[in-house]
């Protein structure tokens, strides 16, 4: 895997209620440098678990200071109008490249009416979504409703091989495999079933070390060409990034 360029599409800036040293954008950049990761797309932990508007400002400040960092606008299905305002405020900059939805913290299933309404608004704006979904079946139903909207299911989306089969069937469904437990062979199976074009690299840093998640990708037995797609090219295309 030496020489493979890496974009990590799942990161956070902010603090967690666990024994993790306080996070900062500078700290994240150091972690990226040590792991050999060129770019990271973050959302604010504050925005995910509490106040999305405040959190988006934290993310905006971080990406302004560090060119390695890009950001998701965090939206909240319980606040549709304000979420639209947040998207309109931040997505017109080239620093915010997608939208983050975390169904657990918002208490709304992936295919709940509230979330579908929100996804409809995201689809109008045409930016990819990183969805920490509820059950796989519920997330797949949401993805099916918006065939033009690229949706990445975080943490592999659910059980395998069902998640990879869904990604193979639905052109707008993608997967990343950030997880604190990495069942052996999961990434490899996903690439085989869904094709390497549908898999991305995400770590959930700074909740999870990218070194750890990279280990699963390193041991997946992928060719250099497949790794390049999974770790770099797919993200460049999906988020319309400059190389």
């Amino acid at each position, binding site marked *: 895997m030496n*020489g493979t360029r890496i974009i990590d599409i799942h990161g956070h800036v902010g603090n967690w209620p666990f*024994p993790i040293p306080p996070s900062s954008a500078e700290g994240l950049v150091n972690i990226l440098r040590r*792991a050999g*990761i060129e770019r990271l797309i973050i959302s604010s932990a504050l925005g995910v678990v509490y106040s999305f508007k405040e959190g988006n400002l934290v993310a905006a400040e971080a990406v302004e200071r560090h060119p390695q960092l890009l950001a998701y606008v965090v939206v909240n299905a319980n606040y549709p109008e304000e979420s639209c305002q947040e998207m309109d405020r931040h997505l017109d900059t080239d620093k915010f490249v997608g939208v983050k939805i975390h169904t657990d913290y918002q208490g709304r299933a992936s295919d709940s009416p509230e979330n579908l309404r929100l996804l409809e608004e995201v689809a109008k704006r045409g930016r990819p979504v990183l969805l920490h979904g509820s059950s796989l079946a519920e997330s797949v139903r949401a993805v099916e409703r918006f065939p033009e909207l690229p949706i990445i299911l975080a943490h592999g989306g659910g059980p395998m091989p069902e998640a990879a089969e869904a990604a193979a069937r639905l052109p707008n469904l993608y997967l990343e495999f950030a997880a*604190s437990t990495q069942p*052996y062979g999961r990434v490899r199976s996903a690439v085989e079933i869904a094709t390497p074009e549908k898999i991305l690299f995400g770590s959930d840093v700074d909740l999870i070390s990218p*070194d750890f998640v*990279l280990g699963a990708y390193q041991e997946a037995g992928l060719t250099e060409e497949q790794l390049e797609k999974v770790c770099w090219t797919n993200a460049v295309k999906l988020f319309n990034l400059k190389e």
Partner: protein
Amino acid sequence: MSLADKNLAMTIFDSNTFFGFSPREKADYSLDALGEMLKSNGVSKAISCSLRGVYYDFKEGNDESVAASREHPWLVPAATIDPRRHLGCLAEVERMRLAKVKAFRFFPDVQGWPLDFLPMRNLLQEIGRLGGVVFLPAGESGAPTRILHLAEALSVPIVMVGANYSNLAEAIACLLASENLYLDTQQLVTPMVLEVLVQEVGIQRIIFGSRAPERHLRAILNVIANSTLKETEKQSILSDNLLRILETVP
């Protein structure tokens, strides 16, 4: 990814592996597959437990583990006992100690019994009497505290297996409360987690364990390799600490 590819030119002793048949999902957990995975990651020795003993019959499984250790010099056998059976459980501790087995691994999470129920306490007392190192799952919130209470009044070293960021604060508190407790690395995956643990509880309490072949060995080795610990500290985690507590068992 040059740093993530960093190799650990050190002796690596994995405290947490298993082998056998996988009934819950199609996977190759054979001894050959495990051996190959260890070798390709530079692991020279591993404590391993037969899944036959976990899922079916602990005596048969333990015999399989002991036999495997005779055939494969890299394998250090771990015995397991399912306390739900009652019959022959305490005698199995002695039988395994006579077979020179030092490691005892328990699977309440798989077998569905409460970690701190009396049959487990009785088994621990027997292991305390005859000697042994115990490995208990600690991934659930509350598990480290239950293990701490089990360890009270015993001098048995107990390795808490699978504590993760969500209950790491509890694990740290328990490590500080009892010198007999240790923590394995299987799910220590947050950035700087090893550095935090060294600062809070000291390097000697961290034991390398991967849960291979079910989990990616490379993933957890990457965390250790890319930590900011000194090389001597990495060596402590990767083998020295485990060797030291095994040597305390006669």
